[in-house]
């Protein structure tokens, strides 16, 4: 894994909302083919890190490079076209629109390959094809999360950032979602995942970072983090 090229590199990134420093000098990298997990409690800065990478917030200082190009300060729609995408926290699907419309929104910048991508996504998520004309409001929580992931695939991303996919889902559904992420990773997608559910996410990730009040306090391979006494105590409860 170590030989693979660095796809995303975050260097000394600081982000502030007014007076509040949400991220302080964060360093992180994601290599092509990896699943990297960001572990942290509520308010640790996980969502800020992902959204800043996408281009929603402007960093106070530091640099983000993706495919060896600086992307910090570039608006989100251009980064999406460049191969980044985010599956928002809380399954941000458009509930008053149909499943198909949601998927097509994911393809907003990639309408050329829409037919092929739809076919592929339906192959992976047959339930979405069955419900393509249903309004997204009628889907269950797990199905909405699947739709949000499927939608992100429609933009043909190289790095998928997934913000707390397990939030508010039953444990059995959470297992399904992580299985999907591992499967997508095997299909060649690189994944940066943020999670409070440290045990399950580290089980499927290659490497991880622990984020505490805006700072990276620990990083290592998934196995190292799983065996770290601090991580076990704080995030796994063992």
């Amino acid at each position, binding site marked *: 894994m170590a030989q693979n090229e660095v796809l995303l590199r975050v260097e000394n990134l600081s982000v502030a909302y007014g007076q509040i420093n949400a991220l302080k000098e964060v360093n992180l990298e994601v290599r092509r083919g990896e699943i990297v997990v960001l572990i942290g409690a509520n308010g640790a800065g996980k969502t800020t890190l992902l959204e800043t990478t996408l281009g929603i917030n402007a960093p106070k200082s530091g640099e983000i490079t993706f495919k060896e190009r600086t992307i910090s300060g570039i608006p*989100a729609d251009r980064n*999406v*076209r460049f191969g980044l995408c985010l599956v928002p926290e809380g399954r941000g699907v458009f509930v008053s629109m149909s499943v198909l*419309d949601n998927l097509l929104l994911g393809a907003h910048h990639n309408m050329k390959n829409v037919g092929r991508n739809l076919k592929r996504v339906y192959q992976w998520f047959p339930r979405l094809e069955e419900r393509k004309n249903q309004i997204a409001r009628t889907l269950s929580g797990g199905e909405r999360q699947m739709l949000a992931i499927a*939608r992100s695939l429609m933009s043909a991303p190289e790095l998928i950032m997934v913000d707390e996919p397990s939030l508010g889902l039953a444990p059995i559904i959470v297992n399904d979602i992580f299985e999907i992420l591992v499967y997508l990773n095997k299909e060649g997608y690189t994944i940066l995942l943020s999670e409070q559910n440290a045990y399950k996410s580290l089980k499927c990730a290659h490497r991880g970072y622990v984020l505490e009040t805006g700072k990276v306090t620990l990083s290592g391979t998934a196995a190292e983090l799983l065996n770290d006494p601090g991580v076990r105590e704080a995030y796994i409860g063992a």
Partner: protein
Amino acid sequence: MQTFIAQVINGLSLGSIYVLLATGFNLLLLVAMIIHFAYPQVVVFSMYIAWVVLRYTGNSILLAVLAAIVSSVLLNLISAPLFQKIMKNREEVDINTTMVLSLGIGMIITDILSHGFNKGLPIAFPAKLVGETPILRVGVISLMGGQVASLAVGIVAVSGIFLLLYKTRPGRAFRAIAEDPNGARLVGIPLLRTGLESYALSGVLGGLIAVLLAMLLGYSSPGLGEQVAHKVLAVSIIAGLGNLAGGLVVGLALGILEALVQGYISGSWSNAIAFVVMLLVMLFKPRGLFGIKL
């Protein structure tokens, strides 16, 4: 019976204009996140532009339509930076400031029309646009060719705009921003550019409405914009602000109701009726008949 049929046709053509106006108004509300109270004034301004072009081109309808569309798009695009400038937070509709700015724009347009064109007197559109002789005449009611044509064009335009909203890529982006601006940004939809597209689209719509109104009414006046603005606001509030499908139903219903009142009671009551309906709806269904969608 003939009165009834004539007035239903009349009402449908008036109603389809209300639908288009409410749709343009709602588009700006949902996608650009502004209350453009003066949108009908923009439309009436474009009627005047069409009138001028008709006069100087020997009644070329094609050029008049193009001029109306261009003028309405330009007016919308010119006001866009003003609106965007005063909006600090693009994730919410700032009703107060955008409404004040919009009222100001409306007054300026009305003043320009009353000082700059035809000495402030109402303008009449040529028979070539309105129709030479009535197609149908029942008692005091007569149906002109322009009225029937405006109904036909109105139906095509309403279907077109709804197809665009529900079946095309920009329409999807509009609806996504309307539902959740932040979510739309997270999937990579550019808010500012899509907002500008909605100004342009409602401008195109405004130009078409200008021509339809000219065909239906046969005249225009500086004060027409304000009258229509009240009606559009009533339609949008009765339907539920931002509710496109609701605007479709209520716009057509109000058009027919007004025409029937005009046919059987008196034309001067039609305004009052729209507002009585609005007051009743606000008393019993404060979110409108079909619900606010903001």
